[in-house]
């Protein structure tokens, strides 16, 4: 199980990387750690002609710290996020989620941007960043643009990146002092891909009460106002959630049970004082 032949180029700058990407005519893949791409290469499922390694671009491992957000370079490793190397308050969700992504040896090379661009529906970063209202900072040959994470993910393994664009960084808003984020995933074993993911961000001080149903067949389901899923007593309304499942074509009875449980547990975490 060895990959087909490819070339590797280590890009020195974003401009160089976008230029190489544009020149490749769709036969190149960016690598930002290769922890998702590597298995696919070894299995010969992915057969790119060229890998463009972007981990040597200093801009992509920067962390920028402001009062209301932190901007994480796309090539910051998941292990470093797990280890609490993001400065300031209101970001506790990130290390907590990071710690349960795959395994430490994978997290040491896997990156937050690489995972998001891989857009695996069952990936933790995909659901988490959608729930947190993260913004994706994108650089292309023709300039820069920003997209919310849930717009960035356009389907299973599909993002909104154009052929010459690179995800440069992810800006994650800080939770306010009273804000809480609940995260629950159903897995058969530690480190495995999730069967169901529920994320609930309860930060009404910032006017945010968002719900994400992850590990679907495609994009995560994002509900921007979770009050739609509440009963009068603020407990979660199963029937309302089941209607969301209906709307999004989640029909499998077992998937519905697991997703309902994941969401309800995330909700309960987020509602704890």
């Amino acid at each position, binding site marked *: 199980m060895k990959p087909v032949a490819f070339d590797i180029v280590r890009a020195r700058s974003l401009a160089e990387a976008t230029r190489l990407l544009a020149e490749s005519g769709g036969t190149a893949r960016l690598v930002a750690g290769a922890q998702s791409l590597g298995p696919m290469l070894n299995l010969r499922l992915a057969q790119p002609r060229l890998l463009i390694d972007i981990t040597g671009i200093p801009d992509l491992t920067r962390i920028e710290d402001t009062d209301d957000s932190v901007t994480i370079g796309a090539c910051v490793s998941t292990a470093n996020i797990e280890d609490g190397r993001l400065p300031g308050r209101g970001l506790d969700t990130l290390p907590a989620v990071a710690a349960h992504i795959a395994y430490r040896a994978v997290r040491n090379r896997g990156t937050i941007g690489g995972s998001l661009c891989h857009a695996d529906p069952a990936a933790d970063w995909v659901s988490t960043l959608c729930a947190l209202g993260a913004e994706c900072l994108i650089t292309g040959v023709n300039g820069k643009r920003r997209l919310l994470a849930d717009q960035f993910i356009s389907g299973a393994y599909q993002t909104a990146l154009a052929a010459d664009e690179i995800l440069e960084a992810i800006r994650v808003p800080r939770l306010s002092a009273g804000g809480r984020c609940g995260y629950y995933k159903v897995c*058969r*074993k530690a480190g495995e*891909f999730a069967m169901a993911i529920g994320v609930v961000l309860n930060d009404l001080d910032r006017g945010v009460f968002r719900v994400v149903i992850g590990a679907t067949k495609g994009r995560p389901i994002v509900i921007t106002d979770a009050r739609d899923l509440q009963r009068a007593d603020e407990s979660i309304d199963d029937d309302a959630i089941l209607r969301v499942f209906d709307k999004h074509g989640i029909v499998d*009875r077992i998937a519905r049970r*697991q997703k*309902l*449980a994941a969401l309800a*547990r995330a909700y309960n975490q987020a509602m704890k004082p």
Partner: protein
Amino acid sequence: MATHGIGASVLRKEDDRFLRGRGQYVGDFRLTGTRDVAFVRSPVAHARLEHVHVPDEFKNVVFTAKHLTGIKPIISAPSVKGFKYSVEPILATDKLRYVGEMVAMCVAPTRAEAEDIAGAVTLEFEELPPVTDMLSACEPGSPLVHEEWGDNIFVEFSENGPIEEVAKTAAIKVTKTIRTARHCMFPMEGRGVIAYRDPRLRYLTLITSTQFPHSVQTGLCECLGLDHGLVRIISPDVGGGFGYKGLLCPEEVALGWLALQVDHPVRWLEDCREHLTANANCREHHYQITGYADADGKLLAIDCVAHVDAGAYSAYPISSGLEAAQIANLLPGPYVFSAYRCRSFAVATNKCPTLPYRGVARSGVCLAIEAIMDAIAREAGMEPTEVRLRNMVRPEQMPFENVVGKHFDSGDHPECMRRAIEAIRLSEIRARQQRPEPDGRLIGVGLSFFVEQGAHGTSVLASWGRPIVPGYEQANVKLTADGDVEIHVGTHSHGQGHETTYAQVAYEILGVNFDKIKVVQGDTLYTPYSTSTWGSRSMVYGGGAVANASRLLAKRAAHIGAWLLQTDVANVRVADGKVIAGNSSVTLREVARAWYLQPQNLPPNIDTGGLDVTAGYRAERDSGTFTYAAHAAVVAVDPATGTIEILDYVVVEDGGTLVNPMIVDGQICGGTAQGIGTCLYEIMPFDAQGQPLASTMIDYMLPGATEVPDIRVLHMQTPSPYTEFGIKGLGEGGAVGPPAAIVSAVNDALRPLNVEVQDLPVTPERILAAIDASPKRATVDHA
């Protein structure tokens, strides 16, 4: 017990090299000029192969069936009545019978390049309807895996006890339909072969990761038409086997042939995809089983029809019949009853061949019979453990012959069960079940009990008519010129620590410095012919042989020693590495020096056989040893997500005299982890076209450290009356008990919802499907 003798938890001699990364597995050998092989394998389950297109530029490095002249197919045909044998070509000829069957062999300087070439070879074939399910394979009109058979049944076994009378009058009748999952054995090291010609010693030499060096030698000789004297098999460090490496692989034959054609060594290292999709699977059974009991839970009769999905071919030398034969004669398990009827079928399908996996057939039969015991308990309104205790052999009945004539050698089964009940704190769990858990999960407890027949001898296996029948085991033991001990054995450790445990046996007899005892194995050039390591036999047979050879060596040494001590041989004994006569002694080193270097000091009537002896062993009664064990599990089932956590796990086992309790515990815990995999995680699913659906590690799930609890192992030690030191075979038992215990525990947990699960693996999806179908549809508790 001496510090390093029988019964001591001696640290392993093997560990140092492994802990420094200096193990020598097949992939670690470096022979100049070695080229790598990749195989083109069938992408379809059933087809007529019409043509293999090889691009012109690769004509010289791609080999297909038409090149393999003078090579015989693999035929593993036991002489059991009615057995239909399969003809397994080394590379496919006219027909493809499973996804992954080898079609062409591609050779290149690196594996990556060999895979490039394999990717350039295209196949032309006409697809045929595949046979993918063992039950429909038995229906009239099913497509045929081997047309010449007329049906798809390799062989049928039956036990025809009189059950009709009992069936009419029994107060309790319970029936279960159970399917176990086809899965993979997944030793951490895959198979692998290096083949080369050795002109000096005139051998075709294979370095191969096998449990069976001599059987591979015999099989290879048969396929290649060579004499044993021209084939050498080296099996170096083997990274786990569990049955997966207990056969002659077509790859071994293919590379052996290739090495005879080319002037460089060739190497094939199985990759994970090949392991999962192309090479052997195991354990796929179906049971339709009915138990009859009286109102007090006394088992009266068992009636069963069982099927084994054996895949496309019969593996050499074990054969595809073994598993079905084992089902028919092991299903009664430890229980006492008199009416038994069972028909078991080994069925051919268009899936890769199955091989016996650790605890051949037994995890399945244990699950089936224990499901019946649980069902009887429910009907009788009894605690399941009570039903089991009621039906066990009492210690005063030992030795005991059960309904199919299995001769249980010794032990106290009820005591073992009682210890497990106590250790798992059954009454506390029952009390805990009276109140809801704070997290909403459901708690359940389950126990299983089984006997583990090990160390099967000639009398058990000759009747099966296998191509290679186990007989006596031999060991060569010698004193070196330094007085150190070197032991050569034909069995082959693949993780069991024989380098340590055989040394313990020799130490027990000779008492030499333990560090100076060396065990050599895994090379047909240096070891006695052996059916090698399988079926929990090595410590009984190999250990017995080492003991006998050590005694013979001691006798020879005593003769020399007595001469050196100027006393009669009747006055000396060998102990502590010395020949001792009263207060005087000579060391075995001095004895060895005399023999090897100073023959003028030897007695005139010296046995010129010297200090290098080979002796053999067969158990006094070779119908097998009967280790037995109770497994007990406490589980928590999350009714909202279907996930299962094992909260506690206890094994109480009686494996007779334990040579090295530390190693025994390791065998039990490792086997138990595999049984947990069998029960909860592992399955190789196929679609209706026979495509295997778990080709990656994301699809195929193995238990990790978070899925296996801190297993508690307790021992009883009833020596076998029939074997050297009273040793019993116990390498497999760990894997036998878990499915039955855990399924029992899960169903105990689900009892409030009045649903059960029965098929393996017990996945969250299956739990939720059962709950979903529950008449008392559970309200989903988010906890």
